[in-house]
Each structure stands twice: as structure tokens, then as C-alpha cells.
């Protein structure tokens, strides 16, 4: 692992969350799965960072490692000027409340045996903060739930979209600085998805949140993010501001991803740029045995001999635009 500061980490004093050289390994039987390897990024105050990639590439693992649930195998997570990976016990519990998480499956995120009101008040109760009915109702109405009729029900009486609202209310009750959303709309219908995305934008403005937004739907990520990080097989491929990544993707994998989006409007589709790209072929390699050098090389149409030998490091590809590829498509 390099000690050099990765170039994509910015020198700014409004950085809220900084993840440096993060790695997470899992022991599966006798093998070690490298779910996340040497990932670095930062998020500035009020920013939304989108994290995209295929299923199994380690997005959720990063989200959880930031929360120290479980702590990463290596690397640092700097939040409020502290490295969370060295904290433990009470200090960790305390710091962790500044970060909250929303999950993909809203139904399994809520304890089926508790009332909505208690679920939302839980964090406040734990920390002995104001958990009065008024406070709970305030967050509930902020997310568009009717406290009077919804408060005493149990989660299974609500639809997926409503459950997601409950989850959002629960995480907002603790007044976090950072909200980590792990595919919060993937399980929802398109019409409800729009409601939740709008709600997240509103809540971000109202509660001055900084967000890490994990998803595999690129249009959704573009809609909500200021910056985007693209992952493949546990590693970062490309990171930069949303406009740059979507209009001028330079990593072969990002191009392939963008080329696979079906567009709702057949007339507006700009086929010129992307449709000429060769399609992504083959299957994702196993993270237990990732390819040498560049992990994308087994499916990369531009792979050359150097890609198998040497691992590509992040390099600048433009203004706030970084790519890890030996032969970026500049």
C-alpha cells in the first residue's frame, strides 16, 4: 500500500468525511475475499457523492466500513477530525451517531415488532435526547408521514415507499452530518422512487446533510450527485464531478456502464458517443481471486500486456476528474 496521498483526495478545509486506503477483506472458508481494496475518496460539506458499480463490487461494504460495522481491515476513515478506525467502545458509539445509514430493503430495515413512533425515537432514547412526541412528530411530518395515524402502526402495515420514509425519519432524528444511502430506491417502483429522491434532496437542504449515495442505476445517481465514484471489483476506477464523468467518461468500464443504460426516451438518446463502444462481455471475476494488475483487464476491450503486469494508479484526467487506467480514453 502506498503512503503517498492519493491524488483524488482534495486539499480543502470543508471536507467532512475522508476515506483513505480503505480495504475490507472477508474470510470465506479458507479463502480471503478482497471485497474492497485501497479505496480513497473524500466528501465535502453539503456534497453528495454517488457510488456506482455492479452488484458485488463492494459498494455496501464501503458504506458499512465507514460506519465501522464492521471496521475495515486497513485504512482510515476520518470524520470530525478523528480516525474512526482507531476509536472503540463509547467514543466510537458517540462518533458514529454523526453518520447514519439508509438501506436498500426498507422492510427488513425496520423491526417488525415495534411501533413506528418507537422506531423513530430509538436513537433519541438511547442518547437521552429529547424524544418527546413533538420531536418525533416533527421528523415524521418532515418526511411526509402523518404522525397521528402512522405513529402507532407497525412497519408491515406500510408500503415499501412509506417504509423508506420511516427509515429516513429514523436516521434524521439524530441530526447526523453524513447520511449514507445504500441503494435506497432500488427496491421501489419508478413513481415512488421519484418521491423518495425528491424527499432526500429536500432533507439534505433542510438538515444540511452531506451524502454518500450508493446505487447501480446511473440515471438516479446522476440526478442526485455532485460527484461520482465508479467502482469495479473492490477498486475505484474513476472519480470526479458528475458532469465530467457523465459527459466525458475516460475509464473503459465507466463507458461500458453508461452504454448499458436503457433510455426512457428513444428519441432523445444520444447514440453517437456511447453505442460504438464495445459491450461489456463475460462475467465478473471472483473477488476471491481478482485478476493481476488492472482488475478490469479480463473484460476490457482496450487491455494490453501492461495491464496484466502493472496495477494502474489514480491520475488526473481533468479538472476534478481522476481515473485509474493505463490507457484512459482521453
Amino acid at each position, binding site marked *: 500500500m502506498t503512503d503517498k496521498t492519493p491524488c483524488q483526495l482534495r486539499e480543502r478545509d470543508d471536507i467532512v468525511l475522508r476515506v483513505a486506503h480503505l480495504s475490507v477483506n472477508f474470510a470465506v472458508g479458507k479463502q480471503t475475499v478482497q471485497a474492497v481494496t485501497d479505496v480513497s475518496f473524500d466528501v465535502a460539506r453539503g456534497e453528495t457523492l454517488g457510488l456506482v458499480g455492479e452488484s458485488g463490487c463492494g459498494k455496501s461494504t464501503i458504506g*458499512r466500513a465507514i*460506519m465501522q*460495522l464492521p471496521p475495515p481491515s486497513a485504512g482510515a476513515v476520518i470524520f470530525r477530525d478523528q480516525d474512526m478506525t482507531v476509536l472503540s467502545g463509547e467514543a466510537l*458509539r*458517540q462518533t*458514529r*451517531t454523526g*453518520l*447514519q*445509514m439508509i*438501506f436498500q*430493503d426498507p*422492510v*427488513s*430495515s*425496520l*423491526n*417488525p*415488532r*415495534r411501533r413506528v413512533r418507537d422506531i423513530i425515537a*430509538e*436513537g433519541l432514547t*438511547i*442518547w437521552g435526547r429529547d424524544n418527546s412526541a413533538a420531536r418525533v412528530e416533527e421528523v415524521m411530518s418532515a418526511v*411526509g*408521514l*402523518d404522525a*397521528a*395515524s*402512522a405513529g402507532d*402502526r407497525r412497519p*408491515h*402495515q*406500510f*408500503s*415499501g*415507499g*412509506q417504509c423508506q*420514509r420511516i*427509515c429516513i425519519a*429514523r*436516521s434524521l432524528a*439524530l441530526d447526523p452530518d453524513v447520511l449514507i444511502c445504500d441503494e435506497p430506491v432500488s427496491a421501489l417502483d419508478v413513481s415512488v422512487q421519484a*418521491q423518495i429522491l*425528491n*424527499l432526500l434532496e429536500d432533507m439534505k437542504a433542510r438538515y444540511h446533510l452531506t451524502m454518500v449515495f450508493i446505487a447501480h442505476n446511473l440515471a438516479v445517481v446522476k440526478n442526485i450527485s455532485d460527484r461520482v465514484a465508479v467502482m469495479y471489483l473492490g477498486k475505484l476506477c474513476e472519480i470526479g464531478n458528475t458532469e465530467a464523468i457523465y459527459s466525458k467518461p475516460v475509464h473503459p468500464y465507466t463507458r461500458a456502464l453508461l452504454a448499458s443504460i436503457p433510455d426512457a426516451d428513444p428519441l432523445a438518446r444520444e447514440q453517437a458517443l456511447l453505442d460504438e463502444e464495445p459491450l461489456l462481455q463475460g462475467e465478473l471475476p471472483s473477488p476471491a481471486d481478482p485478476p493481476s494488475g488492472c482488475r478490469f483487464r479480463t473484460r476490457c476491450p482496450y487491455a494490453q500486456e501492461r495491464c496484466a503486469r502493472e496495477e494502474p494508479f489514480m491520475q488526473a484526467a481533468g479538472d476534478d476528474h481522476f481515473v485509474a487506467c493505463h490507457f484512459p480514453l482521453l
Partner: protein
Amino acid sequence: MRTKVSDQSVVRSRAQGFSAAARQVFGRGFGPGFWIAAGWLLVVALSAIFADVLPVRDPLDPVISNRLNGPLTTNILGADGLGRDMLSRLVHGARVSVVIALTAVTIGMVIGGTLGILAGYFRGHFERGLMAVLDVILAFPWLVLLLALVAFIGQSLMAISVAIGFLWIPAYARVARANTLSVVQREYVLAARAMGAGTLRILLREVLPNVILPVLAYGLVAMGLVIIVESALAFLGLSVEAPQPTWGGMISEGKRHLATAVHVALVPSITMFLTVLSLNYVGDRLRSRFDVRESNL
């Protein structure tokens, strides 16, 4: 943007009117079989509780003239080899069965359940060690173990209950552990930790309420088995000492008269069969019902 969740649900439940409310309380789709079985269990439980005040004869009073009389003669359910009233002995025997079943199951449930939840939550060495010990207990011939325990702690009602309860610890630990493992994977446990909840709070608030119902339902099925175990002990003459009536003891006595008076063995056998069947049925229905419901519809 205010949404209409609540309106939706309200409309729905209003449309169903009273039946929806009734369903909330009594549950939907239990069916008549469930209620018959539950009714029988209630009868057994009431008999056990009120055995002393019920208008039945003295279970220990031998009336020689009634010896081996069949049902619906001098005695409603007939009399046994010593001329004692079978109905009365059944009612008093129910007390033994119920006490043993309840105590044994409670012991197994509390100790086994706790161990299982802890194993499922903490995993690691604790889980592996515990499971190894439990496997050893399970692998041991239970009858031999039971005989040893009874020989060691005596033949009183409590001693026998404790001995049987001990045998049930591994089964409960397994059920509780399996349920805990699936609950712990749910994101609400993760969310609780993210909010700073301590381990004890997570165990009590998030895990226990979701594990306890399936474990309780399993407890009903287990009670049926405990009743059978008691009768097996009685067959070996190791249950509660005579002349105190127990169902197992009655069946075991009845086997001497099988050729001449089948009812002496048959009546307690049928009673026990119905009770065990009802426990299994009710337990099974409850268990399938309490499997954590994920969503409506």
C-alpha cells in the same frame, strides 16, 4: 409533499369493517381445527388447576367392587385394577403432566433460549464451544442420561421436571440460535448499532422480540414430547412415585390388564394422544404464523 399512506390503510380497514378488527384480534385463517385443539388444551389445563375442587371422586380411593369396571358403568370412564376412578385419576394426573411439561419447557426455554441467542449474536468461539457441548449432550442416549439424573436428584415432581428440562436445553438453543442468526442479518439490527445502541439494548429490543415467538411456539410442540418422555419414565417406574396418579403411570398400570380390560390403558392413552396432538397442532400453527411477517399482502 404529504402522502396518502395513512389514508390508504384507513380506507382499506374501514372497507373491511368489523371483520378486519376481529381479524386483528383473533388472527386470520386459524381454522376450526386450531380452536378445537386449543379448547382441549384449555380443558386439560383447567383440570390440572382445579383438580382438587372439581366434583370427581378421590383418585386414591380403591373401591374393590368397581375393579376393572368399564366406562359408563359405575364410573364414567371406568375404574382401574384397584377400583380407583379413572376420570378422577386422569384429572389429577393432568396436574403432574402439566407441571412437568411447564417446568421442563420453561427451564429448557430460558437456559437454552438464552444460550442460543447469545451464540447466534456473538458467534465466534463462544458459539462453536457451546454447539460442541450441546452436540455431546444430544448425542448421549437421553434415556440413560435421564436415568442418571433421576437417580442423582431423586424422584420428586420437581426433580423429574428439572431433569427433563435439562435434556431440552440443546433443542432450544438450536432453535433460538437459528432464529437469531436470521434476525441479526436484518438491517434493523445494523441500524440500531448505527444509532449507538449497546449490545444489551439490541439483544432485548431488536433480537429478543423477534426470536421469542417462534421459540414459544416451539415450546408447545416440545411440551407434547415432554409428556411422552414422562410416560416413558413411568413405564420404567421412574416417574413420580405411586400412588400419585400420572398419565404415564396409568398407562403402564393398564398394560397388566390389556387382555381383560383394555380401557385401563386405552383411556389414559387416548387422553395423552389428544393432548400431544393438540399441542403439536397449535404449536405448528402458531409457529408458521409467527415466522416474521415481512409485509402486508
